[in-house]
């Protein structure tokens, strides 16, 4: 290795959680980002490219947020391994230590720890605009002298706040020295903290009265009564928006796919291929695309609440009730995400440091009513209570509540069955409130949309095509009578499934539709539509299907199917995600098994009881 001075080609951003590191990363790299996982672990690896003012291209790695290199979580362990050279990642040429200018007292310790790594270092004094607003003055020159490394002020909101940092990247950096870093004991950490305090007092002047409104806001937001009330209102507004705005946008998506289907139908000659394209591909993709608005609206609220600093407060408020069920407040954010989709919810459990808590949260995440259940619920509820919006709404809320109550019960049982009663920890920062950064919000929504669309493009599309084929290919056994569907391969499968599903009230039509629904519950409605052999656009299928369900299914069947959808493990992607996140086939099968058992039992009891009561 040469000892010559050179320009940095790879840099890494290091910093505490909540230092604005990701917003800075988004500002530096914009849309030129790649999100993947670090080798062998389920920690998100974000890399991007930036162009310096001199026109050089620099690779930027956004390391997972870490309070310390004495790692307590997987995220922190990855950060430590990458910058101490204990991973397959190449060491960066320059480490950018991002610190929050409004909270140097906490963040400077990481700078002092990073100094020992031997990697050239620059401090990005982030949120400088906010520090000024709060009346905090920082002697940047003196800070750089005390630390012995360059310090550049940055503002991650807006468009030009990273200019000083970008300029710095055009300057040559010295070659890496040797690392003197080693995990610190408590005595050494105390000494470091004294050094932090000395530098802090010498370089930072604060107003006598803290101008940060967070504490005043928290008197209401974290009040045991008013806080819960505010949380209730926030969640109410979120879900009402998902249903109202989301439902309104969904209509447009349906319209667009119906139009596209009609267009292709007119352009192609009648035949097998046209059926595949119009009913299979366009119909199938459209049936799934309709969830996108609802998922994105829910994620818009979750990301905005997270960025504003509110979500950890919600977790705080719910910690005690959730600890009764053996969880901690940290499970709140993953479970909230699971209402959009269990997959990002399960991925969000990575922030839970305690493995048992994390496993419990993963196991119950599929019980949160994800957006894919909405159309099935809507269809059956509308058939149950036509023209009675109040009853329909109440039943919908009841189904959501049933999922939550069941999840808490399962968590409680899991806690009871633990051999050891270790204490779970909470220790969580409640960051200062801030306005959400629009750029990070858009990039966050874009990432989630892509996760969803990849699913549509792969699993769901493949399923739809296979199902279409099963409906179309006639069974080798010859039946003299029956509809084309009954004579198809799918009909045979549905017939065979009657042995399993007849006791819980599912007729052949439902049984057939549930086969693709096992892999992705989104397709249950469109499969039912196909099974009932109807043509026309999605809207029409919806209303005709509803009328037929209302007249042809018994009350017991309708209720039984609703409960089945609440519990049944109907999502292949969730299985795959559980396997990946727990790194265990065992937990995947346990999850699938217990959900299937719950679903079957709930549907069986409901169906048999309803039949008994209606007969009496």
């Amino acid at each position: 290795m040469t000892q010559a001075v050179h320009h940095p080609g790879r840099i890494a951003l290091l910093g505490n959680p909540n230092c604005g590191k990701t917003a800075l990363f988004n500002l530096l790299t914009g849309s030129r980002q790649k999100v993947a996982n670090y080798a062998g672990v389920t920690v998100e690896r974000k890399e991007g490219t930036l162009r310096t003012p001199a026109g050089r291209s620099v690779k930027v790695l956004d390391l997972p947020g870490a309070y310390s290199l004495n790692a307590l979580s997987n995220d922190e362990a990855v950060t430590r391994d990458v910058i101490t050279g204990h991973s397959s990642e190449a060491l960066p040429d320059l480490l950018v230590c991002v610190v929050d200018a409004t909270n140097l007292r906490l963040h400077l310790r990481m700078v002092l720890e990073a100094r020992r790594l031997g990697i050239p270092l620059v401090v990005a004094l982030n949120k400088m605009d906010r520090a000024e607003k709060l009346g905090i003055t920082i002697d940047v020159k003196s800070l750089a002298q005390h630390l012995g490394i360059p310090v550049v002020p940055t503002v991650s909101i807006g468009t030009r706040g990273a200019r000083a940092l970008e300029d710095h990247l055009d300057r040559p950096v010295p070659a890496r020295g040797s690392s003197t870093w080693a995990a610190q004991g408590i005595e050494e950490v105390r000494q470091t903290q004294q050094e932090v305090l000395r530098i802090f007092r010498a370089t930072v002047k604060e107003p006598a009265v803290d101008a940060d409104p967070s504490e005043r806001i928290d008197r209401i937001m974290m009040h045991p009564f008013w806080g819960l009330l505010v949380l209730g209102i926030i969640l109410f507004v979120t879900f009402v928006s998902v249903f109202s705005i989301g439902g309104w946008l969904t209509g447009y998506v349906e319209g667009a796919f119906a139009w596209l289907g009609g267009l292709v139908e007119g352009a192609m000659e009648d035949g097998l291929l046209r059926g595949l394209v119009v009913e299979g591909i366009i119909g199938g993709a459209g049936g799934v695309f309709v969830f996108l608005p609802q998922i994105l609206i829910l994620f818009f609220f979750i990301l905005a609440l997270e960025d504003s600093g509110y979500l950890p407060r919600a977790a705080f408020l719910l910690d005690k009730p959730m600890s009764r069920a053996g969880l901690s407040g940290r499970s709140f954010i993953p479970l909230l995400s699971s209402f959009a989709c269990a997959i990002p919810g399960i991925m969000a459990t990575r922030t839970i440091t305690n493995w048992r808590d994390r496993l419990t949260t993963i196991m119950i995440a599929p019980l949160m009513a994800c957006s894919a259940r909405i159309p099935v619920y809507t269809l059956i509820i509308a058939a149950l209570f036509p023209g009675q919006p109040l009853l329909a709404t109440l039943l919908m809320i009841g189904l959501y509540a049933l999922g939550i109550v069941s999840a808490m019960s399962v968590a409680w049982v899991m806690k009871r069955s633990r051999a050891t009663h270790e204490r779970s920890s909470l220790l969580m920062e409640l960051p200062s409130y801030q306005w959400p950064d629009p750029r990070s919000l858009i990039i966050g929504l874009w990432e989630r949309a892509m996760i969803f669309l990849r699913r549509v493009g792969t699993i769901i599309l493949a399923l739809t095509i296979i199902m279409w084929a099963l409906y179309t290919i006639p069974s080798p056994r010859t039946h003299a009578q029956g509809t084309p569907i009954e004579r198809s391969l799918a009909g045979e499968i549905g017939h065979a499934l009657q042995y399993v599903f007849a006791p819980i009230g599912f007729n052949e039509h439902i049984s057939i539709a549930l086969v693709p629904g096992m892999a992705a519950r989104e397709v249950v409605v469109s499969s039912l539509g196909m099974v009932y052999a109807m043509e026309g656009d999605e809207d029409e299928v919806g209303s005709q299907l509803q009328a037929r369900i209302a007249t042809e299914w018994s009350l017991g069947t309708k209720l039984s199917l609703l409960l089945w959808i609440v519990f049944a493990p109907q999502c292949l992607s969730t299985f795959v995600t559980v396997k990946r996140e727990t790194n265990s086939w065992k937990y995947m099968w346990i999850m699938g098994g217990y959900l299937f058992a719950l679903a079957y039992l709930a549907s069986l009891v409901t169906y048999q009881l309803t039949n008994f009561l209606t007969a009496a």
Partner: protein
Amino acid sequence: MADRGTVPLRLHQLPDQCWATVSDVMVPPNGADRDLVLRLVELGFVPGERVRIVAEGFHGREPMAVRVGHTTFALRRHEASFILVEPHP
């Protein structure tokens, strides 16, 4: 433990909204709790630092939100119990 003069409280015993100064942090011999205390020290719970309980759960003071320096942390009572504080008069 170097207790001078007044008997310090443990942080989880500190009354709501009352300012106090950290006097010491107890270091347990046990592995998981030792990691926890190390983290508390890294987060700024060091002797001389001012702390205050800014919020607590409505039942049994669990969890508690503790202001230290410019940061607020949510802690369980067990986690707070390692920090010794002297309340301000």
